[in-house]
């Protein structure tokens, strides 16, 4: 059996592999990937193993990668002692709210801009496009001022998830993404529905939505992953204990009263949601990068 039967994508072809120098080149590339993947996952494994050490063991000479004993009960202990269930609840509240805000607000806007095209669509699209261009370096302080003391109405949104959700809803990139997707949906279907007397919302829910499951999935997954991991705004705006999210907990970890082994296991608990989402939706996420999910 030919090991290199289906080399049809890259520079090297199946024919090349008969030559020794290309076999060696292939081997080098293979090893390079192997090493690189090790670099990608080894830190996480190290964190897991070191988490089971106690503090004295970490400083033992000679040092060892493996802990003396793997007590799984320590996981439970860290989970309960650091009250992770609380952080999970608040983090999921924040993240699911963000996903909902993002998908609903941006989805509806994208639909309207793409399909209904009310007067002013061109202007709105132009503004959105320019907003995407603008670096956000000076927005932090004024935005903070808006959230802590809303202009004219003078209410304070700190210590709630509203600022996070509003920011998720104001995702210009996703509006354009949705619009472009809806642009691709066949006009004939919609016109047929209109002839049947369906209203805008009806068309949206009966025709557009079922066809747009992929885009909604992609946006939801990326919005969820992005939201679960955020810490900066929650850190600035939320001081209430029961609203503390995983990201903020992680940010405060190094100056928290917990010792290094606890910090390491806490780190693992904090990345668990993303790892699970990634494991389940890996095809979608890796494919979704090409839709434009990459961060700048």
């Amino acid at each position: 059996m030919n090991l290199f039967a289906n080399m049809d994508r890259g520079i090297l072809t199946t024919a090349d592999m008969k030559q020794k120098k290309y076999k060696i080149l292939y081997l080098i590339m293979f090893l390079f990937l192997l090493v690189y993947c090790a670099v990608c996952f080894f830190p996480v494994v190290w964190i897991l193993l070191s988490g089971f050490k106690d503090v004295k063991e970490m400083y033992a000479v000679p040092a060892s990668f493996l802990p003396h004993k793997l007590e799984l009960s320590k996981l439970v202990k860290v989970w309960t002692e650091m009250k992770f269930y609380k952080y999970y609840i608040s983090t999921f509240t924040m993240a699911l709210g963000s996903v909902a805000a993002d998908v609903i607000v941006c989805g509806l806007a994208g639909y309207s801009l793409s399909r209904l095209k009310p007067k002013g669509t061109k202007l709105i699209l132009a503004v959105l496009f320019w907003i995407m261009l603008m670096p956000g370096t000076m927005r932090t302080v004024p935005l903070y001022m808006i959230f802590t003391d809303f202009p004219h109405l003078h209410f304070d949104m700190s210590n709630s998830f509203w600022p996070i959700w509003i920011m998720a809803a104001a995702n210009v990139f996703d509006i354009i993404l949705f619009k472009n997707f809806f642009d691709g949906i066949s006009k004939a279907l919609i016109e047929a529905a209109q002839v049947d007397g369906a209203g805008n919302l009806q068309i949206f829910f009966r025709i557009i939505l079922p066809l747009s499951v992929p885009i909604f999935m992609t946006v939801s997954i990326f919005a969820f992953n992005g939201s679960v991991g955020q810490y900066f705004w929650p850190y600035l705006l939320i001081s209430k204990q029961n609203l503390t999210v995983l990201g903020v907990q992680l940010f405060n970890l190094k100056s928290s009263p917990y010792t290094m082994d606890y910090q390491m296991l806490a780190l693992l608990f904090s990345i668990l949601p993303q790892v699970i989402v990634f494991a389940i939706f890996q095809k979608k996420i890796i494919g979704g990068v090409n839709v434009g999910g990459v961060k700048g």
Partner: protein
Amino acid sequence: MKKIKRALLLLTVFSMLAAVISGCGADTKDAADADGKITVSVGLWPDKDTEPKSYERMENLRTSFMEENPDINIVPDTWKFDIQTFMPKAEAGTLPTIYRAFFTEASKIMEFGYAADITDAIKENGYYGKMNDYLYSNISKNDRVYLLPYEMYSLGLLINMNLFREAGLVNENDEPIIPKTFEELRETAKTIHEKTGKAGFVFPTAENGGGWNFMPLAWSYGTTFMEQKDGNWVSTFNSESCTDALKLLRDMKWEDDSLPANTKVNNEEVIKLIGTDQAAMAFAHPGQLNSLVNSYGMDRNDIALAQMPSGPEKHVTLMGGSFYVIEPNATKEQINAALKWIEFTGFSPDIDDEGKERYRQTMETKREQDADIIGIFDITVWNEKATSQSFKRELTNEFRNIPEKNVKSYNDNKENIEYQVEEPVCAQDLYSVLDRCIQEVLTNKNADCATILETANSDFQNNFLDYEN
């Protein structure tokens, strides 16, 4: 049919907007509510979930206070002072009636008018004149008093007895052999590192902790950080004495290797290093010690607090603390009600039998809960004219849970040391500048202390002081 749909749609949009607005409605508060009660909201209220014990204690106090004073309504507010949320709250007028802030913020709070004038109220209730004299300059502006000192602290030398014992630095009574001067501190740290391999001394370097701890060290070498010349603030720490103080740290790091390998440490991490037996000495005040027991499970026998060592010029330590502030829009009735509440919680210069009983109960709960360290005497707000002082001292001795020998040096020597408050202007900015100096000295083996301070001095003048003039 269509109309209904359109109405539904509009409803959705409006309900979303309404939710946004109502979900975060500001607390509105009035001086007097419907039944004519005076409302006093109290900040720093313990959180029900995370501090259930203190929460219960405060709720009990609140109930009994409102029974005794039916015309006053105490409203809990969990907000605690931090500089980021403070300004917006102050501007929006949503500060609690009483809150507590730190001495470093005193001048800012008074200057920006975020505190009510309480001069008449405290003259009336007799507080005025019973506070220690050195406090008045820090709590008043143009001879009017705006702040009410709550708790004072002074820095001492925190000692991990485990490492002291391991290095043989205890006498036959298990008392630590305390370094009296900074030179001795250096020697002690060196010995500990040689004998135990652990850090002899840890000095914070991050989040302004380094500058804060550097104050007493430099003062005792004779440094003045700033002076007012012809009404202008001039930065003056490019001096030989300050260089010597910084050199001490450099030598401990690079010649003795008695500081920890990690040179990015904030105040919390300093305590962590002591609490996990990774370092033997640090500057700390009594309030920082409780977490040694609570978070790191240290035995109280293994904790000691000594007096700050003396330097070549002076024997001085840093004094700081927190104070009550009454929000600027409070009415006269609210101010008086607030002071009444403060007194009820056990804060007053004089103490009656009822107060004594309550204080005893507080101490009993504290002992039961076994969370705090009892038995360390810090400097106090009240002077000798106040009757509560001796009573509290007696009671503390009765309920003591840390061995007296471990804190003797800190408790007994209150007269032979000077207490200095933090610098009057731009203290936090000065700390951030000094943080950077200390980081440089501890990360760069060939750092030249004099040059670093020369730059830092002109930086501080140029970046901060010039804008105060």
